[in-house]
Structure formats: C-alpha cells, structure tokens
C-alpha cells in the first residue's frame, strides 16, 4: 500500500507535463491505470481497493495534477459499465470516459414517470439487429453536450413493470434523437428533454440482458446517490498555469454549468449572519430567533451527517442518520429562504442585478423549491425512511401486474400547466 503510493508519486513526477493536452495526458493515465486505480487491471485500472484508490487520488490533488475526467454522468456510466458491461463495451467506452473525449447523460426519468422511474414507457423494439426506440425522457442533465446516453426503455409490456425494462447505450448524435433545453422557474436551464423518434440502438449496445434493465439502473442510481454529497469542481487546480489547466478549466466550466445555482438551491445558510449584520436585522429579536432556529437545524444536520460517516468509518452498522440528509436539506433550504426573506424585507421582491448580494438572494428564493423535488421528492424520502429505517409496513401496491394493464399517465408527449 505504502509502496503503491510511492510508485504513484514516482510515476506522476516522472510523467506529469502540464504542457500536454488533456487527452494526451489522460491517455497515459488510462494506459497505466493511475487515475482509476480501483478499476480492474485489464480495464485501465490497477485492481486496487477503493481506499487505496482514494489515497492515490489524494496524491494527484497534493501534486496539483489533473486526473481522469470525473464530472457529469461519466463516472456513473463507468461504474455501470464496469459492473454490467461486456468486454467489448468496456474496451470501447471506458478509456474515452477517462480521457473526457466522450461525455454522457442519463436517460431515465420521463414526463409520466418521475418518482416512479420503473414506470418508464419509452419503448425499444427489436427490428433485425437494431433496437428502435420511441419515447420521451426528461431531467437529463447535460444531454445537449452528451455523446452517449444511458437509456432505460421498456422491451416487454406483458410482465410486471420492473421486469420489462432493458438498459442501453444510445448514440446521442443521430437524427432520431432530439434534445431540448428545459427552462426552470429560476431562469436557468440545467436539464433537457430528450425526444426519441425511431432512434436506433445497435444490438451490441444492450447492457446486461433483455429484461434486466432495472437491476442495471439500480447500479447507476446507487452511484448517483453516493456522489450526491461529493464536492464538485476542482478548486485547487483553478490557479495553475499551463495548457492542460486551461483545457481542464474549460471542461469543468461546461460540466458544472448545470450546477451553478445549486448552492442557492440549498438556501445559502452561510450568508445568513453576514446578511443580517448588513441589513441590521441582526438587531431584531424576532429575526434573531429565526436565524438561531436555522443555524440549529443546519448544524444539527451537519453533525448528523458526520455521525453517519464516523459510524461508517468505525465499521459500525449504518444507523438511521445516513438516510436523513436529503430530507434535512429540504427543511433547511425552506427555512433558509424564509430567513433570507425576513432579513431582506421588501428587497426580497427584487431580482437580477437589483436583488441584494448580486442577485443571489432572489436566486435563493426561486431555487429552493427544487431541493425537495430533485433526486427524489420529500414524499419519496419519507416513504423510504419510514419503511427502510423504521420498518413501517409498505404501501399497498397497484402496479404489480403486467405493465400493459397498470394505470399510467395518458400524457406521453408534451406536458404543460395543470
């Protein structure tokens, strides 16, 4: 292990050259396996444990060296391919994920199936050697930049819903795929709608087996959840000079574009005291109470998350703390929006440049409603917490029969106001 770190350090100091292009450098990484050390040796890794890989990543960080392309859906695609892909698929896609030459998007959610992902009605029908895909997906981050999509589609309508899905890799650059950006109520457009009309997927691009799509999707979703808390961006490399850094920053900028309002979505508790001092609201006993309530809620949530991590590190069985973060985040964001409003008074009705703090306050107020929806609504979180953590009985189900008989939304194309 120590040996491995020493090797990494040595290899990096011998090979690192900030004047290489991103792709040149990352091609070296893929060939040697240093950037993705916990991947298997035959697939651009070194077969190390996840802990060792993390140590090696820390060396990259410490030496200020650019690693594999991490951002967006790339790592979810890689994890899914590593677990469910066949040899050809892994050889074809994994390397260009590391180099960043290909970017990926996820095509799971649909207008008619948001909370109920397995209720997907996008269909894939086998015609000769090709799957013909028809349907609409939505909430597809960065789909307008993506080369490939991870597609969940229904291939069998006569079996229960989880059993009739298959998982494909779809080439986004084809006439049958149309991507539209989707504007949100906060003015940003972080997501896309993807319309597939007789889009084509070759047989080779089926992942795992026909009807096994839900199991594959679960892998993707598990990795998505794990990356929920991961800090995005690469702050420490932001100041470095050299060709590769310029390319890297450009890559980051594109990849992070959809997430730039996320700090506001979370409510910006960090700004509360500063703003309260600025406006004088810190002297108002009523506002002080609300500020304290928010700080208590927010700190308690941080400590709960820390307890969950500490327990995990100590090898203890996961307690209830682990599942609570998302629900806590919703409560915090909602309360933060209220407190920011109290603090700003009438100025809270301004927007854009007129809004306090370079428009951040307004962006908070119109962004927080997303926290309790994106990545699983509060309602879904509470179902999960009550059933999985507290062991409460499950809801009675109405969707266990053949999918073709399950009631579903009639809307399949456009969805407008209610």
């Amino acid at each position, binding site marked *: 292990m120590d040996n491995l770190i020493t090797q990494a350090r040595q290899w990096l100091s011998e090979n690192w050259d900030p004047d290489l292009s991103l792709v040149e450098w990352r091609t070296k990484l893929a060939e040697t396996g240093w950037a993705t050390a916990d991947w298997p040796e035959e697939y651009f890794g070194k077969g190390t444990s996840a802990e060792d890989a993390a140590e090696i990543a820390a060396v990259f960080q410490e030496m200020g060296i650019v690693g594999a392309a991490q951002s967006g859906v790339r790592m979810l695609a890689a994890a899914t391919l590593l677990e469910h892909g066949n040899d050809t698929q892994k050889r074809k896609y994994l390397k260009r994920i590391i180099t960043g030459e290909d970017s990926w998007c996820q095509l799971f959610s649909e207008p008619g199936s948001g909370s109920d992902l397995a209720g997907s009605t996008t269909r894939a029908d086998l015609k000769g050697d090709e799957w013909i895909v028809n349907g609409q997906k939505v909430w597809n981050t960065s789909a307008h930049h993506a080369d490939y999509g991870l597609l969940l589609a229904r291939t069998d309508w006569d079996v229960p819903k989880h059993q009739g899905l298959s998982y494909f890799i779809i080439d986004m650059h084809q006439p049958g795929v149309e991507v539209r950006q989707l504007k949100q109520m906060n003015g940003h457009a972080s997501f896309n709608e993807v319309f597939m009309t007789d889009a084509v997927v070759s047989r080779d691009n089926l992942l795992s087996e026909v009807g096994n799509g839900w199991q594959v999707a679960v892998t993707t979703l598990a990795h998505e959840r794990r990356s929920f808390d991961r800090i995005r961006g690469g702050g420490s490399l932001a100041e470095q000079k050299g060709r590769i850094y310029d390319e890297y920053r450009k890559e980051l900028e594109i990849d992070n574009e959809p997430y730039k309002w996320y700090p506001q979505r979370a409510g910006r508790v960090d700004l509360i005291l500063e703003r309260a001092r600025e406006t004088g609201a810190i002297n108002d006993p009523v506002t002080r109470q609300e500020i304290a309530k928010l700080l208590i809620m927010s700190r308690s949530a941080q400590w709960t998350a820390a307890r969950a991590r500490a327990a995990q590190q100590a090898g203890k069985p996961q307690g209830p703390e682990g599942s609570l973060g998302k629900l806590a985040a919703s409560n915090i964001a*909602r309360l933060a929006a209220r407190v920011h409003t109290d603090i700003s*008074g009438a*100025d809270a*009705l301004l*927007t854009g440049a007129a809004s306090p703090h370079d428009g951040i306050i307004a962006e908070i107020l119109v962004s927080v409603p997303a926290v309790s*929806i994106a990545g699983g609504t509060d309602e879904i979180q509470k179902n999960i917490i009550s059933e999985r953590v507290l062991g409460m009985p499950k809801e009675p189900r*109405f*969707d266990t029969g053949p999918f073709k008989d399950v009631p579903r*939304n009639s809307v399949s194309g456009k969805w407008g106001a*209610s």
Partner: protein
Amino acid sequence: MAFAFTQDQDNFRHMVQRFCVEKAPTTETRKLMDTEAGYDRQVWQLICGELGLAGIHLPEEAGGSGFGAVELGIVMEEFGRSMICAPYMGSIVMAGTALSTCATPSQQQRWLAPLLNGEKIAALAICEASGEFYSTHLHCTARISSEGWQISGEKRFVVNGKQADTLIIAAATDNGPRLFVTESNATGIDIQQVETMDPTRKMADLKLSSVDAELLGQDVPIDLDALQNLTLVALANEMAGGAQALLEAAVEYTKLRVQFGRTIGSFQAIKHKLADLLLIVESAKSAAYQAAVAFDNKEDVSENASLAKAATSEAYLQAAIDCVQLHGGIGFTWENDTHLWFKRAKSSEVFMGTPAFHRERMLQAMGD
C-alpha cells in the same frame, strides 16, 4: 355582507371571473409580463369602461360606483386568482384612492377622472427604503416658494411607476407629511423600472430633484398609515385569490397525475397536505373578507387590515410552496404556470410590509 356575500355580490364576482377567464388566460399574462408596459391597453379599457371596475370602491362624487372595500375585494380576489396583468393596484387602488381621499373636487376632475376612464395611469409613491411603507418620517421633502411646491428626494417600490402618466408623491413639509401630484414627465423626475421577482407587477424607483408639484387638497395633516389600509385590504384579497388558484391547481393536478399505478392524489400524505392547505386558504379568505367588511364599517381598520395581510401572505406562500411540490419536477419548470403565482406570492409577502411587521402592527392597533 357580514359573513355571506349577497346575491348581487356573487353575480358581480361571476362577471369578473368570466372576464378574467376570457381575457386573461396565462398565455396573455406570459406575453404581457415581458413587455415594458406590462398590460394590454384594450383589456384595460374594458376594465375601466364596459366593466366599470375602475372606480368600484370610490364614492359617486369622485366618479366612482359608490361600492366599498368588499366589492373591491371581490375584484382583487378574482384578479389575483387569474393573475391578470393590469395596472389596477397602482393606478386605481393606490393612486385612485389617494386622490379620492385627499384631492379637492377640481383636482379630482383633473387627475382622478382620467384614471377611472382608463385614459391615464397613475402611481402612488410613499415608501422610501426597504420595508418603510409606513414611515412617518419622510426624507423626501416639499418646499414652497413663490412658484409653488417643489419636491426632492427618492422613492422606492412605486407600483406602476414607470407606466404612470401621473404621480402622487408623499413628502414632508414643515407642517408634516402631505401628498402632491405631478405629471410623470415633469422636469427633475427620474423613473427607473426595477427588476422584480414578479414581472406581472411592475415597480419603479423615483429620483426627484426640485420637481414642481401641486399640493393635494387643503394643507391639512394626512395619515399615510391609514391611507395604506385600503391597499392592504386589496392586497389581502388578491393574495387570497392567488392562494385559491394554487390550491385548485394542486387538487386538479394530483387527481390526474399517476405514479405507481395510482393517481398521486390517492396517496394519504398528499390528501392530508391538501386538507391542511384548504384550511389555510379558507382561513386566509375569512381574514381578507373580514378586513374588507371592517374597512367599510370603519371598525378597527388597521388591526383587521394588518391581520389580513399577515394571514394571506403566509397562506399564499404556503400554497405556492405546496403547489410546486405537489407538481414535482414539472412544477419547477418555466413552462408550468405555478411559478407565476409562486413569484407573486413571494413578492406580495414583503410588499407593503412583512408578515412579522403586520403581526406587530395588528397588536399595536389593538392597543397592546
């Protein structure tokens, strides 16, 4: 009405409602909110002319219809429900009432009549800094000289300020606060439309340097605070209407939307959220209606107006939060109409004073 609307009032409401459904679908709202004027002149002519809504609450001597705050409340509730884009709040409720209350008959003839027939738009400028809607200490001052009154200072959150032909301005004189009137294109006035979260309600900031203006009415003390009460009553009823619209949208959507093989409206958590919301919205309506009745009866006007403002603000915001949430992802999109109400709710929450401010104002009005 004490607690039930009369048949006439119900009929009146249905008339306003039909008009809004016909003339103010959200497709229109979305079009108009992106224009600088923010309203449709033809529709405004109908409101002032054919429908006769412009002077609904003003006395007949002032050119109004002689009804009261209850009828005005009905208009506001339906306008708030439909999210119609019209300068009703700025030109009629705020400026119109100020003129009707303070101006001499000849001033009313000159300044108020064109508002009521829709020829002109006016705006009322009282507030000077964030949240100071009720300040008795105005920094904006009026000085008299041989050439008449001149005003200097700054005003904020002036509803329909940029659209206005006529400005009513509160300013301090040596004898206390007074209202003044001037054309908006008078020399020395700088009007900047400000970017507000809710683009359906236009607001402006004013800078005034030695602007010639005419004193409204006689040189007698005016109580700006009391003058604001009608705006609060109107706003409360508008918010009640908005909350109602959101509740209806949430109920309708959750009855249609299917997940896990059943409509989401059949999930108990959603049913209970809607039951809670119904209670909140009906309570807010009660408060808004009662504030209008109290205004007309001149009973505890400030107390009831502030009560209604606080109650309806909270209810509207809750309805907006719930309505987005119950729509799920779709509710967070620009394409879905929910955000129009959400933004109106959010900005109405702090316009004319935050809920906390009005809870305090209510207790003070009660003598506590």
